[in-house]
């Protein structure tokens, strides 16, 4: 078997957009690969398939890469994915997306753990800092760049990240690790797994982390310490070959330091604060899978997510309950998938100094159905995929997300694919329903007349960012094209896209100039004190509207090279350009006209029998984040000095020096810090 082909075909993914499987004679007979493969050919959403044949821009981060890289958190692991924008605000907070401008509150990337969504409808944020998944028990992370709307629901316009954890039958035994270094005081993991009679298996795990502040802040001393404890459990049951079930749960308690700004008094100005926040995140999920026949299977999954956050000026509480049913079957040359989903959100958000809710949306319902058919026009050569998802949500009603894809495999080692799809992004409650007090505007900036009186002209008028229930869902249509080829020791993966999004959120400025006229009247009448008093009743409104249009063009190219069993390398380049078309008197809410380029290289070298050197380098060149370009090298050396024990030294952000990765502070209330170089030592034991 060709080495690189094995590298690619061995990576099995949960993706719907694939053509026929490999001929049996090409099967990879390494035990690891066999254990990762699925027996069903019906390729629905929860079925593993070859990444090589997938008709979307997909990247599979394997468990080997995650372990060899020495990543200590999910965002750090995602830095290994070419084409993902992964930018760090401070030691806890991150902005991550693909094919878009990453934001702390980036609503267009759908993040899931074993199919359970972590989308929060209030801010449309993913709290990366509290997303605890034990990295050593991850099977793989699948990243789809671009629209994944159909099977995964709304808000997946820019991409989907699905973190798939290992079946507990494959994690029996004891695992322990402890790390410490320049930014981490300690980070320790412990897991124990075993059999339950001969019908099931389980694992329990715990994690604790105590992290330091950054060295250097931008305007305030850094306060971004970490105190985090987490525990979880997973059970898998296999009563017979037809049925299997899993139940898992996790609870994470975090106390995180941060610097932020907010308007809390009648100065109407942003004030800076140093504070800590407490968060408790819990999740439970259960799934039952049934193999109806060799040609059909079905799945029922239900999950519950609870997130509570508490900090001086913001109290939030969010719960969601999901239930999904999916069925897929094969009938001659047709593969058919269909499914139903329902989601219930419960949001309570104490009125705070910054955010006032118009109320009425404490609970949100969402339900829908999807159907997708894949038909072989020419057996093993040409497949067509058609599908649609229709979904109802309480904010914007019914939404429709159709797609059409074509996969052509002219030869066994080449695949060409193309796709047209529409996806929808439902507004968050901040955009739809809330009012947020932001840094005040000065009178001379917003009024038609300058008085020459300093106290008046430089008075900061209370300024609101107002959600708007007329805001429509953002609709984006993406045209994609891709090509893959494998040869003896290398492989190429190329994809390009042209995406047009309409109804994009922008901010319309209403200075309400008439409100100043009576004040000027009072001044002319010499009533200075009354004029000053009247000023306190003025306000400027930044209203959220959905009338912008954004065109994104871009592509990714990834070259994989494996000249021998002990060495492999990856070279990637990604390019995306964002072009905003705005109505008069508006400005973009997230991002602005910009271009992001990323050059990426990764190498993984096994030395002797028990040493390994893993390096990745990222050259980030972008004018989307209000920061300088930077180049960062991550280097990890591992030594398995005993069959049960290994040590590692990890250097992160080497050569980048102290740098800022994200500085779009207008879009977030957190104040970022300089990101530092760091060194971490790790000791791992497995029994």
């Amino acid at each position, binding site marked *: 078997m060709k080495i690189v082909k094995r590298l690619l075909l061995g990576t099995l993914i949960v993706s719907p957009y694939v053509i*026929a*499987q490999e*001929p*049996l*004679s090409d*099967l990879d*007979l390494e*035990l690891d690969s*066999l*254990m*990762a*493969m*699925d*027996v*069903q*050919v*019906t390729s629905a959403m929860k*079925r*593993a398939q070859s990444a090589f044949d997938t008709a979307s821009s997909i990247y599979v981060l394997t468990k080997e890469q995650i372990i060899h890289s020495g990543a200590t958190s999910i965002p750090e692991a995602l830095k290994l994915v070419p084409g993902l924008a992964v930018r760090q605000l401070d030691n806890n907070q991150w902005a991550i997306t693909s094919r878009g401008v990453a934001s702390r509150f980036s609503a267009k990337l759908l993040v899931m753990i074993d199919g359970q969504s972590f989308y929060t409808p209030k801010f449309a944020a993913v709290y990366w800092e509290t997303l605890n998944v034990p990295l050593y028990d991850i099977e793989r992370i699948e990243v789809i760049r671009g629209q994944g709307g159909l099977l995964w629901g709304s808000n997946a316009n820019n991409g989907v990240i699905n973190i798939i954890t290992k*079946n507990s*039958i*494959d994690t029996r*035994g004891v695992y322990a690790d402890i790390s410490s270094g320049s930014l981490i005081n300690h980070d320790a993991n412990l897991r124990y797994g075993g*059999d339950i009679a*001969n019908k099931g*298996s389980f694992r329990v795990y715990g994690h604790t982390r105590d992290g330091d502040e950054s060295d250097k802040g931008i305007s305030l001393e850094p306060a971004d310490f970490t105190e985090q404890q987490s525990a979880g459990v997973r059970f*898998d049951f*296999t009563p*017979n*070959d037809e049925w*299997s079930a*899993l139940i898992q749960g996790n609870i994470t308690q975090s106390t995180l330091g941060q610097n932020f700004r907010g308007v809390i008094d009648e100065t109407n100005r942003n004030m800076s604060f140093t504070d800590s926040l407490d968060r408790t995140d819990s999740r439970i999920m259960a799934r039952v*899978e049934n*193999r109806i026949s*060799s*040609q059909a*299977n079905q799945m029922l999954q239900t999950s519950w997510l609870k997130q509570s956050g508490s900090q001086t000026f913001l109290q939030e509480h969010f719960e969601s309950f999901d239930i999904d049913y999916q069925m897929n079957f*094969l009938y001659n040359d047709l593969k058919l998938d269909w499914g139903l989903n329902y989601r219930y959100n419960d949001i309570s958000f104490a009125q705070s100094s910054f955010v006032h809710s118009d109320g009425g949306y404490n609970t949100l319902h969402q339900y829908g159905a999807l159907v997708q058919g894949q038909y072989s026009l020419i*057996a*093993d050569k040409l497949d067509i995929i058609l599908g649609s998802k229709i979904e109802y949500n309480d904010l914007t009603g019914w939404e429709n997300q159709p797609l059409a894809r074509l996969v052509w495999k002219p030869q066994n080692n080449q695949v060409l694919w193309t796709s047209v799809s529409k996806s929808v992004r439902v507004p968050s409650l901040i955009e739809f329903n809330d009012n947020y007090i932001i840094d005040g505007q000065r009178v001379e900036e917003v009024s038609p007349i300058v008085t020459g009186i300093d106290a008046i002209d430089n008075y900061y008028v209370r300024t609101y960012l107002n959600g708007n229930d007329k805001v429509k869902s953002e609709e984006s249509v993406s045209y994609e094209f891709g090509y893959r080829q494998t040869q003896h020791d290398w492989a190429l993966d190329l994809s390009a896209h042209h995406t047009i999004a309409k109804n994009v959120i922008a901010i319309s400025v209403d200075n309400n100039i008439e409100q100043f006229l009576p004040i000027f009247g009072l001044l002319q009448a010499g009533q200075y004190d009354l004029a000053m008093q009247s000023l306190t009743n003025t306000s400027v409104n930044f209203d959220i509207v959905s009338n912008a249009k954004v065109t994104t063009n871009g592509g990714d190219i990834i070259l994989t090279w494996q000249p021998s069993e002990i060495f492999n390398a990856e070279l990637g380049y990604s390019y995306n350009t964002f072009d905003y078309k705005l109505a008069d008197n508006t400005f973009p809410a997230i991002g602005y006209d910009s271009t992001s380029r990323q050059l990426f290289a990764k190498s993984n070298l096994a030395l002797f029998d028990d040493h390994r050197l893993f390096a990745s380098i990222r050259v980030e060149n972008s004018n989307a984040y209000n920061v300088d370009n930077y180049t960062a090298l991550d280097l990890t050396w591992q030594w398995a000095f005993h069959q049960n024990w290994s040590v590692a030294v990890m250097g992160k952000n080497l050569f980048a020096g102290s740098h800022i990765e994200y500085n779009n502070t207008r879009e977030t209330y957190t104040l970022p810090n300089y990101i530092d170089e760091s060194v971490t030592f790790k000791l791992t034991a497995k029994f």
Partner: protein
Amino acid sequence: MPLALLLTLSQSVNAIDTEYALKAGFLYNFARYSTWTDTNTALTDFVLCSPDSTFVAVASTVLTNRKVGNLPLLTKTVSITQDDLKQCQVLFITSATVDLWLASSLGQLNNIMIVGESEDFIANGGHIRFFLSSGKVRFAVSPDKLNAAHITMSSKVLRLGRVVDL
């Protein structure tokens, strides 16, 4: 194998074929990572047998040109009789042929690794049993029974299976 069958296999892979292909791959790994301790007779081939010709057809495709140790790996359809089984190092009893296995009363078979896929197969004289967990192939194994048949399996593989002591 007839050419027509080869073509059918490579053109359209159905679900049964995939499952058997994976199981054939596992059997090959069981063979590679085990030692047959009683080596009285010098072998010229390593023979994987099954009474199920459908399985043997798939296995022969998957395992073309494979070797176990230095021996070429052969696949054969056999009947479940003492005589016919003498040539086998690994015997796979599919669920379609398990009744034949249960009906035969062969007594202790030494030097043959006996693998099945039916419930209670290990209680019914087998050493290893495949099962499916979330659509993936996994196995239960009785090292004691393997040892009794003069076969030792490497801990590398044992660790991946569910060890049962009967």
